[in-house]
Structure formats: structure tokens, C-alpha cells
């Protein structure tokens, strides 16, 4: 799972959320948002997540940040991230990118040895930063569409494609390696550590996102889907050029005031 989605995933807690807005209706019919056919269900799940976050997840994450020293948190973050590099490597290969796969392999090797089992990210300083990849990205690379947007409590915003891809990412080590990755003790330790760390790391960003939102559910959905679309576009561009604000967004800039029928409110201060 890549970083920013993961960031946005783990974490929603804003004490002063505006009250939930009832579903929009147009002429008595519920209006469906493109890409979110499960909106009613998703909004309920979002509310559940927010309640759990406020009561348990955020306080626990803030406690984790206060109690556990920064170098230890960074070490654990690097350790679990390093264990994910074989998944990145496999998906680099599946996307027919041997050069990228080789760099991922080099990164994993360096950090597993010189980086003391992955605790220290030595490779980053050697020009081999972490580059997220996973089965969701591979599905997208081969043309699988995202499918419906889904909000899952404790997991966060995702799409059907990426939810299935994420399950594949999570299953790889337990299936391919077995012990200790298939034990519940490892699964719980990894899940809790990564979950709390991610939640703590994104707190400021998430708070800012929700504080500027009229409808936090819709804002998170929009930001998540835009970011994911950009990641997929970058994957498909295969390293050609910098990621560009997508041309799809041209459509978003249709100016209703530009229609001749509409009065032009061009009163400049």
C-alpha cells in the first residue's frame, strides 16, 4: 500500500466535525456521485470509523507518539516497510520493469544487512528511496478499473480493486514464507504498530483537511481518488516525465458562468 493513501487511510479524527448532512435528493431521487455507488453504506461506515477514531484510535496513536521515542518509531516504521519490499519487487516485475525491480531488490538487500534488518533506511541516502507498489497498482497497470469507492472502518478509503490488491499484498508473506508471518502474534503486532504510527504521522495533515471541509466524507473521498489516480498515471507513465496534474481535471473546470445564458459575476474588488 502506498504512502499517502495509507496516510489518509488510517486516520480520521476531528473533534469538531460538522453534523452529518442528509443524503442529497433531486426531485425525490437520491443523487449518485460518480465512482461512489455505495455512498449511503460508505457514509455509515465513515461515521463508525470516526467514532472509533475519536474514542480509541486517535488517543492510542497520540499516546504511542508521546511514549515511544522518535528513533524507535522510525526504526519500527522502517522495519515493517522493509518487509514490504519483496511485495514491491514482485509487482515491479509483474509490471515488466526490471530496472525498477532491481533497485527495489538493492534497497531491500542494503537495508536488511547494513540497515540492521531494516531498522535503518540506509538505502534512501544511497539514492534508493522507497517506491510503493502493490497488486492494486499491477491490476491498474493492466487496465483494471478502480470499481466502486469503499470506505472501510480502520482501513479507510479505498476502491474495490485496491481493497482486493491490498489483501493480496498482505497475504504474500504469510503464504510464500509462512512462519512467523502467518502467526496471529506477528499479524497483530504489525497491524497495531503500523496502524498507530501511520495514524500519528498523518494527524496534522488530516486535521487540516477536515477543518477546511464542509463535508469531510466527500472531501476525503475526492482527495483519495485524485491522489490514487495520479499514482496510477505515474505508474503507467513508467518514469517518463514528472507526474502532471491530470488532463481529466480539465473537465472539472467547466465554468457554469461561461455559458451565455448565465450572467457574468465579474465584479472585481
Amino acid at each position: 500500500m502506498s504512502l499517502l493513501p495509507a496516510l489518509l487511510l488510517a486516520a480520521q479524527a476531528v473533534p469538531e466535525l460538522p453534523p452529518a448532512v442528509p443524503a442529497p435528493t433531486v426531485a425525490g431521487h437520491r443523487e449518485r456521485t460518480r465512482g461512489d455507488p455505495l455512498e449511503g453504506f460508505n457514509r455509515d461506515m465513515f461515521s463508525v470509523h470516526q467514532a472509533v477514531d475519536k474514542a480509541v484510535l486517535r488517543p492510542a496513536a497520540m499516546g504511542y507518539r508521546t511514549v515511544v521515542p522518535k528513533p524507535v518509531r522510525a526504526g519500527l516504521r522502517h522495519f515493517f516497510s522493509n518487509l514490504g519490499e519483496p511485495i514491491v519487487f514482485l509487482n515491479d516485475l509483474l509490471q515488466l520493469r526490471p530496472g525498477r525491480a532491481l533497485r527495489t531488490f538493492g534497497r531491500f538487500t542494503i537495508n536488511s544487512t547494513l540497515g540492521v534488518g531494516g531498522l535503518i533506511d540506509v538505502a534512501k541516502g544511497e539514492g534508493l528511496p522507497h517506491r510503493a507498489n502493490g497488486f492494486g497498482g499491477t491490476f491498474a497497470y493492466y487496465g483494471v478499473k478502480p470499481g466502486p469507492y469503499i470506505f472501510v472502518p480502520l482501513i479507510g478509503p479505498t476502491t474495490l480493486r485496491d481493497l482486493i490488491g491490498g489483501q493480496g499484498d498482505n497475504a504474500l508473506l504469510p503464504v510464500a514464507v509462512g512462519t512467523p508471518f502467518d502467526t496471529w502474534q506477528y499479524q497483530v503486532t504489525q497491524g497495531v504498530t503500523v496502524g498507530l504510527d501511520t495514524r500519528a504521522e498523518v494527524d496534522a495533515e488530516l486535521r487540516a483537511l477536515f477543518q477546511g471541509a464542509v463535508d469531510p466524507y466527500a472531501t476525503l473521498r475526492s482527495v483519495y481518488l485524485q491522489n490514487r489516480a495520479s499514482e496510477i498515471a505515474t505508474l503507467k507513465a513508467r518514469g517518463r516525465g514528472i507526474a502532471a496534474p491530470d488532463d481529466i481535471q480539465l473537465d472539472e473546470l467547466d465554468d457554469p458562468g461561461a455559458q451565455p445564458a448565465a450572467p457574468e459575476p465579474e465584479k472585481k474588488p
Partner: protein
Amino acid sequence: MRPILAFTLFGAAIPALAQAQAPDAARAPVQALSDGLIGIMQGGQKMGFAGRSAAIAPIIDRSFDLAMMTRVAVGPAWTGLSAADQAALVAAFRKMTIAEYAGNFDSFGGQKFTIDPNVEVRGADRLVRTSLVQPGEAPVAIAYRLRSGANGWRIVDVFYRNAISQLATRRADFSRVMANGGARALIGHLNDLAAKAAA
């Protein structure tokens, strides 16, 4: 033929290309905004929220096409609104925009904006890429989309990390409140956001 002459002939033959080679006009609002933001960051707590708002407001008015941004963010429902509601929405959107900049850019820690000299063409629009450079942190990519109108080039959208369009996000954010409560409800929410940013 010397290369310089070939270049000149080539340039003269393609007016569109020549136009694209004069990017300074589209860069100016981005430069003004970036300078303004550094200014209020440096002013910080001494200026206070009111001082930072007063300083950044005229720069925002000159850099952004706030009326157009409001129309796009509200979406197709805009055309069905009364002129009074339209004006009130633009005013509320402006107030929120100013409050958010004044609220967020409230302290200085050696940050600077670098502006890419290469202005990119996006249809009739232009794209200016900038980077917020902060000591000890990874730079944050912020790109601006500009559109040319009666008042010259104005910013119409801001892209965070080259991925997230502020206008697309706002449109998603506003749509439910507009559908349920109409313009008055949205104006109320925008004023609340402005008040929250000031707090």
C-alpha cells in the same frame, strides 16, 4: 543558415509557439502570491490573524479569479441561482480563501517558494509549478492553473503534490450541501470555515 536565424524564422512561422514563449505574464500572479505568503509568514504572530488577512487579501484579489473558482466549485446549480445568491457565494468563498491563507501561513521557519521558470500550456490555460521548500523537510509541490480573462492571467486552481486539484476537491465538498440546502446553506458553511480558520 545559422541556427539563430533558423530559430527566428521558425518562431515567426508559428505564432502559437511564439506566444507560449512569453510566459512571464502567467507567472506574475504566482510570484505575487508566493511573495505575499512569505510576507505574512514573516509577519507571523506579530501581525496577528487580522493583520495577515489585511495584507494577503489584496494580493489574493489580484492573483485569483475567485468568481470563476466559486462558479466551478458550485457547479451546474450556479446558473439557477439568483444574482444576489451568486454575489453572496463569491463573497463567502473569498472570505474563506483569505481566512485559510491567513490562518495557515502564520509563522516563518525559513521557508521559500521556488517557481519553475518553464510555464506549461494546458489548452487555453497555463500551468505554473512551484515548490514549497522547508528546512529539514521534503519539498512540497504546489502547481497553479491560470486562465486568461479581462484582468489578465489569474489563478483558477491549485494542485497539491501535482495530484490533488483544490477546485475538484471543493466541488466534491460543496455538492451535497448545495443539493440539500442550496446557496444559503453553503454560504453559512463557508462563513463557518472562515471563522474556524481565524480561531
